[in-house]
C-alpha cells in the first residue's frame, strides 16, 4: 500500500499525540516521584507518624478563649478579612453543635451545649477526598498525615472544595492581599484563584513549635502523635469520651472533640 504525503502526515501526527500522552502517564506511574515531604526534618523539629488534635470543649469558657485561637491563626497566616461571607477565607472558625455535627444534635440537649460554639478546622483525614480528586496533586498528604496545599500548582478547579465533606477549604475568589490587616512577612500571602486551608502549622512544627492555635488555647487544644500511646492526644482520648465530625464517611478525620457534660459552660 502506498501512502501520499498527506496520509503520512496524518498518521505521523496521530502517532505523536498518542505517544506523548502515553509517555506522560507511564512516566508518572513508573517513576517514584519525589515528594515534598521526603526532605529530612530539621533537628529540633516536631515529628510524628500521624498528627492529630483533641479539642477539649470543656476548657473553652469565655468568648475570649475562642478569639485567641482564631485570631492568632488569622494573623500569622495572612488570612484576609473581606467582611462578607461570599469571599470569605477561613482556616479555623466556630459554629454551633447543630452545624458542626449535623444530624447528631439531640432534641433536649443542655442549652449551654446547644448554644456553645465549636471550633472547626481541616480534619487532616486519613483518606482525604480532597487529595483523591485533585487533578494536579496540588493537594497532597504528607507522611506525617498532614494534608497540604501547593499554592503554585493549584489550578483553581475547586474539585477539592466539592469533595471535602467538612467545608474546610476556601478559595481566593479575588486578590486577598489588600484585605490582609497586617501582613506577616514570615508567611507567604496567596494569589487569587487558588484554594487554601489549615496546614496544622507545618512551618511551626518544622521549628519545633506547636501549632499556633494549640499554643494559644491554654490546653484546650491538644496536639500530638496518634500512633504514640504516651502522647498527650492518646492520653486525652483514653480518659474521655470523644466524637469526630462525620466519621461514617470513612474519611478518618483526625480532629477529636471532647464534649463533656452539661457543666461545661
Amino acid at each position, binding site marked *: 500500500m502506498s501512502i501520499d504525503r498527506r496520509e503520512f502526515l496524518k498518521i505521523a501526527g496521530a502517532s505523536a499525540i498518542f505517544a506523548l500522552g502515553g509517555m506522560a502517564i507511564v512516566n508518572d506511574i513508573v517513576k517514584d516521584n519525589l515528594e515534598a515531604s521526603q526532605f529530612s526534618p530539621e533537628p529540633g523539629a516536631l515529628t510524628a507518624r500521624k498528627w492529630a488534635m483533641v479539642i477539649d470543649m470543656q476548657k473553652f469558657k469565655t468568648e475570649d478563649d475562642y478569639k485567641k485561637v482564631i485570631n492568632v491563626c488569622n494573623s500569622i497566616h495572612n488570612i484576609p478579612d473581606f467582611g462578607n461571607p461570599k469571599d470569605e477565607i477561613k482556616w479555623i472558625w466556630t459554629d454551633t453543635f447543630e452545624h458542626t455535627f449535623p444530624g447528631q444534635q439531640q432534641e433536649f440537649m443542655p442549652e449551654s451545649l446547644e448554644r456553645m460554639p465549636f471550633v472547626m478546622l481541616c480534619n487532616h483525614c486519613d483518606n482525604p477526598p480532597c487529595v483523591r*480528586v485533585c487533578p494536579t496533586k496540588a493537594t497532597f498528604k504528607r507522611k506525617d498525615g498532614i494534608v497540604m496545599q501547593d499554592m503554585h500548582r493549584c489550578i483553581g478547579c475547586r474539585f477539592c472544595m*466539592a469533595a471535602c465533606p467538612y467545608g474546610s477549604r476556601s478559595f481566593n475568589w479575588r486578590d486577598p492581599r489588600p484585605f490582609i490587616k497586617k501582613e506577616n512577612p514570615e508567611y507567604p500571602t496567596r494569589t487569587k*484563584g487558588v484554594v487554601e486551608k489549615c496546614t496544622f502549622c507545618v512551618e511551626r512544627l518544622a521549628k519545633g513549635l506547636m501549632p499556633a492555635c494549640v499554643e494559644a488555647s491554654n490546653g484546650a487544644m491538644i496536639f500530638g502523635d496518634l500512633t504514640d500511646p504516651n502522647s498527650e492526644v492518646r492520653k486525652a482520648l483514653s480518659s474521655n469520651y470523644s466524637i469526630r465530625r462525620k466519621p461514617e464517611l470513612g474519611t478518618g478525620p483526625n480532629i477529636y472533640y471532647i464534649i463533656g457534660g452539661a457543666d461545661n459552660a
Partner: protein
Amino acid sequence: MLDKALTGSRRYWTWVLFLLAVIGVGFIFYLKQFSYGLGITGMSRDVSWGLYIGQFTFLVGVAASAVMLVIPYYLHNYKKFGKIVILGEFLAVSAVTMCILFIFVDMGQPTRIMNVILHPTPNSIMFWDALVLSGYLFLNIVIGWTTLGAERKGFPPPAWVKPLIYISIPWAISIHTVTAFLYAGLPGRHFWLTAIMAARFLASAFAGGPALLILLALIVRKLTKFDPGKEAIQSVSKIVAYAMVANVFFMGLELFTAFYSNIPGEMHPFDYLYVGLDGHAKLVPLMWLSSILAVVSLVLLIYPGTRRMEKTLAVACATVFISLWIDKGFGLIIGGFIPNPFDRVTEYWPTMPETLITLGVWATGFLVLTILYKVAVSVREDTAGIEIEH
C-alpha cells in the same frame, strides 16, 4: 473544505457577525474575570461551582448523544441516518469545544491548566475527564471531516475510519459516565452520591442532544437545500421519546429513594430545589418550570399524532431541551451544594458578567457549529443526487 465556510449568503454572514459580537462581549467580560478573579461570578465558598460547570455537564451530554445516530447507522446499517449522522458528529465537535471552554473559564488559575497533563493524576476523575473529552473531540473531528471529505469526492470513506467509528461508540458512553463520576463519588454530597447518576446522565443526554439535533435539522432544511430526511427526523424523535421517558423514570427513582427512606440528607437538596429549604427558594420556580416542560414534552412525544407532525415535534424538542437544560445545566450542580456541609443554606445566582461569559462560550460553540454545518451542507448541495455506498 473549509473554503466552503468562506462563501455564503448575506443571512449567513449576518449570523456569523452576530455570533462574533456575542463572543466579543463575552471575551471582554472574561478579561475582566481574569483580572479580578472568579469573585466576579455568583459563586461562593459554599456554592463553589455554578453556571459554568453546569453548562459543561449539560454539554457533555449533548456531545455524547451523537452516538444515538452512529449506532443505528454504522452498527445496524440504518441507511435513513446517512444524511443526518454528520450533523450529529459535528454537533458533538461543537459541544465538546464548549465543554472545554466552560472548564477553562471556570479555572481560578487558567494559565496553569496544563498542570493536569504535566502532573497526570490517575486517581482524579478530572484527569480522566480531560483525557476522554479531548479524545472524543479528536475522534469526531477526524471521523466527520474524513467521511465528508470522501463524500465530496464521490468516494466511500477510507477503511481506517471504520475502527475509529466503532471506538467512538463506547467512547461517547465513557465521556458522560466519567463526567457523572466527577459528582457521584464525593462523600458528603448526598444529592450527587447516587449509583444511577451516570445512567441518569446518559438518559438525559440521549433525550436532550437528539432533541437539539432535530431542531437543528429542521432549521438546516428550512434555510438550505439540504434535507436530512423526514424519516430520519422521525426516527430520532422516537429516540428522544424513549430517552426522555427513561430520564423522567430515573428522576422518579431518585425521589422515591430520598423520600421513602426519609433520610434528611437525601431529602434536603430536593426540598431546596422544589419547595425551598429554611426559607430559601430561589430555584423553586425554575425547577417547577423544568418539571412542567418535561411532562408537556412527554405528552407531545408519546402521542403519535403530535410526534409525527413536525410543528408539534419542534415544540416537543424545545421543551425537552429547556427542561433538561434547567435540570442538568443548573439545578443538578447547585442542588449538590445545598445545604452545605454545615447544614446551612447559601444560595447562588449567576451574575451579569458570568452570564455574558456563558453566552460568549455558547456563541463560540454555535460559531463552530455554523461553520461545520455550512461545510457539510455545501458539500451535500454539491453532491446532491449522488448515492454513495458506505
